[in-house]
């Protein structure tokens, strides 16, 4: 069940109301049942996979802790490392089998065919389990956290299973580290009116981003990206710009609904997005975009590889590895690898050109503190990020290259002859999309100085309720959801 479905609108109030009615000591059981129900509503079979990952990482925690008690320190470290390896190996093997097997099978077949060697890798008809990348990473963080002694191993399998399956963040994050979330299941959460209110407000904001903005922008993006040969010039530019906001609003909406839902029940999840398109460099972008994934890679891949405390070439290599793996994490296709690689190249080139940039600024006496300079940086960053998104969204690598080729065509008349309103959104729909986008960006810009939720809670009840009702009605009318009304359903052909 997705967050914007009618099922969730019924599921969530029931879960959260009962959560507060159940005695504190038993609440985790209720949440565990709810989480597995939530997950199994996609496909009950997937629960077996999640259960397997849960048990493996749970055991890894206990075994690591046990190994730590061995008096022979060398043997203890070796054994601990062995358990970490086994946990990673088995979890990543499951992930590989379900997500990457076919992709790599194809890659090998292609490579061999290049050398005129025909090999046959049997393909598997497996449906990608929802959220597998998210919960696998979350579960693996536990193994490492116990290994690093950041937390103690969790003895209660049920509570640990809840950590892996906690429904608000189960299928699309934020990816929580065990040291940040696991202990919260032992906390007693009293019903706090303000927390509940704030949580609901955040969920409402998420629904707005997803239903009013993201799903509306998707119509233009889908129109153009599903027929790359049909469109040229500004049509592709517009669709590409809108995709940047579509994916942002979509993902950020999911995280906000997750955080809001958790907050209603007294849990704190990490912020996942922080005005990413206001970043002045791609480096900053990655500190603001999918923050929890970035943190995961930093903690569990980048730093173990040596991070930046090593030679320059090694640092560049580490950076590239992290970005390519991150690309693969997003999806098993060449597009995602290219997308990741591009971001890696941006970062490495940025680092390499740092001295050049400094000397140019010095020579041209550019004042880097002006608004115009900052705006320039924001725009350049956006263009770079958005260019990479082409590979992320295009249905294939060929489509991506077609789109890039067709993009270079000067057809400004599409803005004046009405063509722009034939890309999936009528002019009225386009207006709502732009209005929604404006509100999202305004919130990002002002959000750097103002904490909206605190400022809002200080307003009078009349104003606050007016905003609540207006927002709900606005989403109800302008949201993209449900089967919708189709005239043909109501046209009666008999007479």
């Amino acid at each position, binding site marked *: 069940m997705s967050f914007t479905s009618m099922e969730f609108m019924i599921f969530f109030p029931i879960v959260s109301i009962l959560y507060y009615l159940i005695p504190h000591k038993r609440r985790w059981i209720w949440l565990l049942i709810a989480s597995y129900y939530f997950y199994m509503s996609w496909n009950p079979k997937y629960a077996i996979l999640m259960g397997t990952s849960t048990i493996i990482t749970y055991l890894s925690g206990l075994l690591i802790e046990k190994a730590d008690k061995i008096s022979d320190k060398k043997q203890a470290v070796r054994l601990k490392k062995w358990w970490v390896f086994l946990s990673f190996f088995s979890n990543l093997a499951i992930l590989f089998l379900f997500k990457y097997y076919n992709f790599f099978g194809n890659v090998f077949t292609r490579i061999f065919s290049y050398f005129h060697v025909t090999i046959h890798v049997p393909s598997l008809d497996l449906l990608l389990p929802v959220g597998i990348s998210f919960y696998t990473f979350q579960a693996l963080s536990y193994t490492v956290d116990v290994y690093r002694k950041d937390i103690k191993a969790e003895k209660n399998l049920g509570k640990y299973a809840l950590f892996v399956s906690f429904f608000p963040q189960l299928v699309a994050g934020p990816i929580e580290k065990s040291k940040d979330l696991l202990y919260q299941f032992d906390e007693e959460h009293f019903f706090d009116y303000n927390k509940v209110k704030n949580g609901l407000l955040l969920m409402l904001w998420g629904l707005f981003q997803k239903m009013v903005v993201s799903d509306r922008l998707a119509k233009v993006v889908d129109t153009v990206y599903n027929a790359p040969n049909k469109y040229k010039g500004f049509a592709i530019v517009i669709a590409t710009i809108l995709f940047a906001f579509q994916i942002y609003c979509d993902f950020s909406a999911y995280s906000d609904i997750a955080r809001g839902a958790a907050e209603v029940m007294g849990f704190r999840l990490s912020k996942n997005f922080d005005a990413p398109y206001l970043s002045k460099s791609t480096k900053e972008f990655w500190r603001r975009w999918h923050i929890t994934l970035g943190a995961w890679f930093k903690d569990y891949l980048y730093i173990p590889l040596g991070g930046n405390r090593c030679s320059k070439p090694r640092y560049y290599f580490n950076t590239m590895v992290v970005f390519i793996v991150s690309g693969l994490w997003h999806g098993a296709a060449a597009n995602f690898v290219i997308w990741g690689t591009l971001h890696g190249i941006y970062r490495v080139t940025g680092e390499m050109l740092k001295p050049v940039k400094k000397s140019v600024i010095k020579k041209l006496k550019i004042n880097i503190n002006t608004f115009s300079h900052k705006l320039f940086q924001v725009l350049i960053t956006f263009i770079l990020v958005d260019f990479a998104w082409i590979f992320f969204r295009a249905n294939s690598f060929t489509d991506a290259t077609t789109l890039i080729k067709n993009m270079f065509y000067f057809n400004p008349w599409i803005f004046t002859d009405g063509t722009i309103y034939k890309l999936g959104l009528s002019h009225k729909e386009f207006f709502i999309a732009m209005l929604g986008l404006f509100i999202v960006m305004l919130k990002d810009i002002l959000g750097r100085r103002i904490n909206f939720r605190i400022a809002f809670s200080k307003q009078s009840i009349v104003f606050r*309720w007016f905003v609540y009702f207006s927002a709900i*009605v606005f989403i109800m009318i302008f949201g993209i959801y449900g*089967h*919708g009304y189709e005239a043909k359903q*109501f046209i009666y052909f*008999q*007479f």
Partner: protein
Amino acid sequence: MTKKIVQKVVIFIIILISIVSLLNPIFIVKTDHRGKLIEGLYNHTGDAYDVILMGSSHMNGGIDPNVLWHQYGITSFNYATAGQPIDVTYYLLKEVLKKHKNPIVVVDVYYLCLTNKYGEEGYIRYVIDSMKPSINKLNAIMNCTPFMDLPYYLFPILKYHNRWPELTKNDFRYDSAYKYYAKGFEAGTNKYGKDNISDLTATGTAELPPKSLEYLNKFIELSKKEGFKLIFTNMPNDFNSIAGKDGWVKDPAKMLNQVAEIAKANNIPFIDYGSKMDEIGFNFKEDMNNSGHVNIWGANKVTNDLGKFLKENYNLVDHRNDPKYAQWNSDYMRSQIASLSK
């Protein structure tokens, strides 16, 4: 503290539901069916109808209240709407009976032939979206629509919200009275020009689909409980248009024989105009609009016959000279049939 929070939540929900309820009618699509049901159900409760006509499009374009009025002085209203499934008809009848006590109820049984659990959403919505909040409406939603659609029927804005770019003044200030003169009747003016190819002489019976049987019995029970007279009809139509098709019974003629038997066992008249065509001078080629529906001339013939039947078998007062019903005379002058005979 808890009490205060509960109070706040309740007030919030009440205000929200009130706002949504105000917005719902704006977004609901305005069809002739909606207009007539609002008029017939809620705005003309002063008109005590002698006869009420229920059913699907066959009835909608089959029996003309203006003809019943003009020829026999019978007051009636046609509540039939296109594709109205029989279960929906049942709850609509219950809603009608709240304001119109003890009329003669004529139900067209064509939709008993439907085998699907639920009718088409668009058709169901003609009726349910036009009903004011009530137990009957809730029962109709619970029994005639899939459970997961419940919120979409309770709050039609969830269904129609994407109509926002096409809203006009008429959506905000809807005048449902514009066609009341027709008393819910509307027939086509085509001439089908083909013969009936379905077998009208079929003998033997066939089982009714379970839901149809359940609701046929419910009509009979309701008539006994509420003490109203019930009549079943079937309009002339070519069964071949539905026989054996997806969602319809294999042998409608035989199934209707079964209906006739059930009606007989319960002492309820069943007038099958399919087998009365010769008797009333009904010419299939000339009097049908298409293979399934009678046209305005066919409706005139069928209505005249029904009027005669009603007059002969029930104690109905002729209201034509009652000054209270003067409006019915001018309504007749605007009717489809009157304009055709001008």
